Structure formats: structure tokens, C-alpha cells
């Protein structure tokens, strides 16, 4: 577990979490790192909880990380950051989208969406950054680019050059969608700088 950086992406099925983790993994591979990424899909499309570990370094063995070892938790949805907080290392960085997606219990009025999210997170780390991913995605031109916004917000904290990010994003989207996603990425990056 030395010299390996673990990033945990978390969100709700349909938010593009796994797409984002694929792009992140490709960028890191292009930057010359050994990488392993894990995901559990299938349940994802049906509004379930979705997570993906992306681990990179000189030589990566395990595709998953032990609890308390992720350097960065990138959460695409507010509540999901809480659900996986155990995996964050003490003092680790949390990047959290402000989007709230009600799970069935909340939609039915049987449970309340947690309100004190920041309070809980600050018990583990003070390094919390909120990203209005949906608003920024709309500014870039399409709500579905919210996941690219979040990748942009994550990018300043990773050893990957802007050139490589651009190359990877060009590879990852059809030509007609590149400009929008690059714009979303840059705007997201602007949030973190």
C-alpha cells in the first residue's frame, strides 16, 4: 500500500460515475502509471449506489483499497459521500457535488435525507470542497456533462498534465461532444484552483 494513490468515486446509478472512472483511468494510464480500477455494475442502472476505486502508482496490486486508505473521495451525490466515508484516510480530501438524489425511502416519505452532511465529514477531514456540478454542467451546455465537471474539479489534485486530459477526453467522446465536455472539464477545474 506504499506509493499507491487511491481515489474513490461514488454516486448514484445514472450519474455517469463509471464513465468518469473509466476516463480517469485512461488519463492515468496515458500519464504512465500502472493502474487498477474496480467497479460493481449491473445494479447501477436501477438507481442503486455506485462506487469505483481508481488506484495508481508504480505497480498496483489490489483493485480495491482497505478502509481508511483513499486519498480522495469524489462524490457525485451528497449522501453517497457519507455512505463511503469509511474509505477516506484521515485528513483526506473530499470533493462533493451538491446534487441530491432521493433514495426510495426518502421519496416515500419514510426517511429524511440527511441534512448535516458536512458535519459528519468534518469529523474525518476538514478538506471538503463543494462543487455545484449540475449548475456548471448547464453553463457548459448540458446537464449530462456533470460527471465531466467533477473530473475537472478532481484534476488539479492528480499528477496528470492538461495535455493528457485533453487527449483522453478527445478519445473518450465522439467529436460532436468533445467541445462541450472540455468546457465542462475546464469550468469544473476552475472550481478547485
Amino acid at each position, binding site marked *: *500500500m506504499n506509493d499507491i494513490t487511491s481515489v474513490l468515486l461514488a454516486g448514484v446509478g445514472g450519474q455517469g460515475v463509471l464513465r468518469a472512472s473509466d476516463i480517469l483511468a485512461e488519463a492515468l494510464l496515458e500519464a504512465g502509471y500502472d*493502474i487498477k*480500477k*474496480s467497479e460493481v455494475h449491473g445494479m447501477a442502472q*436501477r438507481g442503486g449506489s455506485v462506487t469505483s476505486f481508481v488506484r495508481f502508482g508504480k505497480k498496483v*496490486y489490489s483493485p480495491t483499497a482497505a478502509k481508511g486508505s483513499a486519498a480522495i473521495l469524489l462524490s457525485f451525490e451528497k*449522501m453517497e459521500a457519507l455512505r463511503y466515508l469509511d474509505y477516506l484516510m484521515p485528513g483526506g480530501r473530499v470533493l462533493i457535488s451538491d446534487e441530491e438524489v432521493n*433514495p*426510495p425511502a426518502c421519496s416515500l416519505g419514510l426517511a429524511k435525507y440527511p441534512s448535516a452532511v458536512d458535519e459528519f465529514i468534518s469529523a474525518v477531514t476538514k478538506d471538503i470542497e463543494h462543487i455545484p456540478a449540475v449548475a456548471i454542467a448547464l453553463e457548459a451546455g448540458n446537464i449530462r456533462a456533470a460527471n465531466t465537471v467533477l473530473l475537472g474539479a478532481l484534476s488539479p489534485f492528480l499528477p496528470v498534465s492538461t495535455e493528457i486530459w485533453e487527449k483522453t477526453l478527445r478519445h473518450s467522446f465522439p467529436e460532436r461532444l468533445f467541445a462541450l465536455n472540455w468546457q465542462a472539464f475546464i469550468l469544473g477545474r476552475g472550481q478547485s484552483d
Partner: protein
Amino acid sequence: MKKQLLSGNEAIARGAFEAGITFASGYPGTPSTEIMETFAKYKGVYAEWAPNEKVGLETAIGAALVNIDAMAVMKHVGVNVAADPLFTVSYTGIEGALVIITADDPSLHSSQNEQDNRNYAKFAKIPMLEPANSQEAKDFVKLAVAISRQFDTPVFLRTTTRLSHSKAPVLIEERISEEAKREVRQAAITFDTAKYVMVPANARVRRGEVEKRSALLREFAETFPENIMEINDTKVGIITAGVPYEYAKAAFPDYSYLKLGMVYPLPEKLIREFAQRVEKLYIVEELDPFLEEQIKAWGITVIGKEVFPARGEFDPGIIVKGIAGSSEAASVLPTIPARPPNMCPGCPHRGLFYALKKSGKVFVNGDIGCYTLSFLKPLEGLHSCICMGASVSMAHGMSKALGAAGKGKVVAVIGDSTFLHSGITPLLNMVYNKSNVLVIICDNRTTAMTGMQEHPATGFTLQGEKTRAVDFVALAKALGVDNVSIVDPYNLEETQAAIKAGLASDSVSLIVSHRACVLFKRAGETAKPALQVDGDKCTGCRVCLSLGCPALAWRDFAGMPAEEIKRNTKKQEGRVFIETSLCNGCSICQQICKFAAIG
């Protein structure tokens, strides 16, 4: 040479292609599904979805019998379905190569059990390889083909969910050349009844061949290049295989390792040698003490399930806990609402199960597919789910055992793909042995849960060719079911009427609940506009919420801005909103709203 990020499944498919496998059959099943989907796209290969894994394996056996390199692909419980041909092809062997992929599911991410299919290798006396990462997943398929031909045996390749769905860099290589293929892999019919007709007299001879082959394989295992001894710090030695190797290396990179690429048969001499070279020996394996029991039987002292869990998948933290005894930091998590998967907005099963619920207190035997999710609150629509096809058989058994007391109380619900997998034979049983059950086929026109695959009633093959489509009504009638009807589950009135008639019947009834899965878009189907709740009419009765549709959300008036609150009854506490981005326009909520508030 460039490396590509491939999942374990993509790597297995690529490995099959590079190895010269040109034939594959299987049935969708998480975590194996992408293997077939990826393989099917390569040029020059034949890949099919069979109705079930037994047919899939038998089909692959047929291909291997004419000197083709063939592959059968299935999840762990799929091997149970394929077990009959499995045990006997172990005796006969084949002419070409036969690789059987078993995709196990430790931690039951997506399955009804977490059985450890390494046991099948020992049980059926078939060698099994287990890769630890995507690169090995690709390489081991080629090794499996070579071993299959060299020893005239089917060969298992085992993957688990974590390997199948993790991605890692893989070196892409050339496919075996056409010349090399032509030399050994010309398809040709071989007549050899002594080898392939397994009447007892012949089978006894082949049984002897199995013993000879097993001895040769045990010897081969001793020098198999993927059984790798890494001598480092000899204070601790770890014997392991598959993804657990990666977890252990991540946790303790400096200990000594014996990494087994072949988990059956085991290399006894190599294991003894490794045991002698280390002070303390651990076995790191998920699920059953499969390796542990065999190694202990040789009198070697090892620590396994004493310190490691016998259930669930591992991670580096579990390895550390087992060996170093450290405990995890206490959880900092508050209790937060669960987020289970749910049926999509507009799912046709929602209408069906709502109608079924309104029909009275019945025991619904369920089966495996998206409709299984109806068991969640608030629909709570099914009461049993054991394995593929069990809904129909169990309903028959219940009905016969209850006799007259069971009339109108027993229902079986089964998906279209599941029905074709293993629902036909128990439906036949119902008619033949005369039970009184309502059977409902949830016909959403696809194999949905696993990602929208084709099946024999969709009209298309895996590789996209048009083909005959099974007519469920005609099939049911041919089996002897007299009461057959088709309903649209988006039409609650029609569906409820058909269910009522079915429950009142004195013999087997079949309803085909026919409406395509909302995620499944064949060209030409247009989306319906989203519906809305009229705040001037909604009384907050919450009846629509009993559908459990993700697009419907309740909001308390407490906490809403005063100008948005409209009480239509004195005691109204809140109202329902429809999330426009989620609503599919199926109109089921509209049909049950008594206040015409949805439109």
C-alpha cells in the same frame, strides 16, 4: 506495444480470440455476461446465446467434438444448470479444445448464493485455472486451450466479480495465425463410439482414462509455469490464487508467496517445498477452505479459515487483520437511508405487481430477473425466489400439496428469458400433473437485468441476425394450457381482470404481461411525455407512492415556502411531485389516482 485498459471479462474475450477459439455458447449471468458480448463482436467467430447453460455447454461440446476450439461461458450457478454434461464430458474428452468459464460471485453482489466453483473442478475431475488480474485472464485462456488439447480434457477458467469487473492494463497481442490454425484446427467429424457413447461398458473404460489423465495433470502442475514461488522474507509464507493474491501483495509485499495459477489439481511437491522454506504458512482464499483442506490432508500445517472469513470477498484490510491481527478503526458512518437498486420509472413490472397486489392475498412464487426487485417495499410483490425456473415448479408443488385449499392462492411469476431458460418444463409439468396455478410471464421483450440481451423470443441472435421468435401463447397452448391471455401491464384494468379470471380458474392459466422494458430501445419507439401532479388537486393520500416509482417524490408541507402550499383537505400534510427528468409517462400512477391529480 501498447497496453489497453481491459476488464477481466474483456481480457478473457480477447484471450479467447487470440487463442483461436472460434465458437462460444452461454447464457447471460453477472458477472460473466460481458465475456460473450465482447467475444461476439470479433470477426470470424461464432457466438450464441443459448436458452440456458446446459444447452450452452452441450453446444460447445458439439463444436469441440469436430475439432474446433470452443468456449462455454456462465456464472457460478449456471454451472449447476450445466452440471449434467459437465461430469460426463470429463470422461469423454473432446477432439478440439473446450474451455469452460465459471464466473463466481463472492459477496453475492448479484446472485442468490456465493457457491465456490473450485469444488466443481475436484468433483468433476477437471483442471481449473484461476487468473489474478486482467493480463493473466487473457493469458490463461490460451493456456487453457493448450492444456485442453494436450490432455484431452475440458478445462475450467475461474473468474470472480472483482476480477471480471476491474480494469487493468493488458498487452494486446496478435491472434494465432491462420496457418497455425489450419494445421490443427480443421473442423472434421470423428467417429469414435467407444469414446463418445457413454453406456456403462464404455464409460468404465473412460473412467480409467480419467484416472490416467489426472495423474498426468498432477505431474504437470508441479512445473506449470503459472504456479509461481516467490521467496522473499521467509518468516511468513502465503499460498494463494486469483484476486486474493493481489490483496495479499498489497498488504504484505515482502512476504514469501506461492501463487497458484492452477487451483486444481494442486502441485503437492511444490507446496511441500514451499512449506519447508517458510516459518509460518497461511492460505489466503475466499469462500471455501478448498486449498486448505487438501493441503492439510497432506499433513502440512497451515493457517486459513482460523483467521480469514469463510464468506464474502476479501480486501487488503482483511488480509492485514488475519495475519497481523490488527482491527479496523471504528466506523464513522452515521445511519443513512439505504439506496438499493429499484425498478426503473415506467417499468412494466410495476403495473403488473400492483394489479397482482390488488387481487387479494396470494403467494407469489418469483424468479430471477428485474421483476425480482418487486419484492422491495412498497410493492412487496413476491414471496419466494430460489433459482431459474423455480417459480413455476414450486407453484405446482404448492398447488398440489394444498389441494382445494390452494385454489386462487398460488401464483408463479417468471420473466420471458427465464421462462425460456427453465420455465417450459415445469409449465408442462403443471398441465401433465394437473395443478391449478396462475402463471404470469413478465414479457419485457429482452433479458433485462443482465443488460438487455437477446433470447429466443426477441427475434434476434447475439450476433444481430434476424431469426424466428417464440410465440408464448402458441407455445403454452401446444403444452396444453387452455386459458392463455395477453395483457398490457400499463393497462391496470385489463391486467387486473385477467388476473382475477386466472385465479378463479380450475386449471392452469397463463397470462403474458407484454410490454417492452423502458431501457430497451429498438429503433422507432418514441418516449412518452412526462406527467405532472397538479398541486390544486393532490390530497396527499399517498396512494400513488405505493407503486414505489422513483419518479414520484413526497414532500412535507412543513419546510415548503408558504406560497407553494395548497391544502385540498384539512389534514393534508404534504403532496407528491413527479421528477420530470425521471418520469417515463407510463401513466400507471395516473390510473390509480382517485383525484385526477396526475396528467
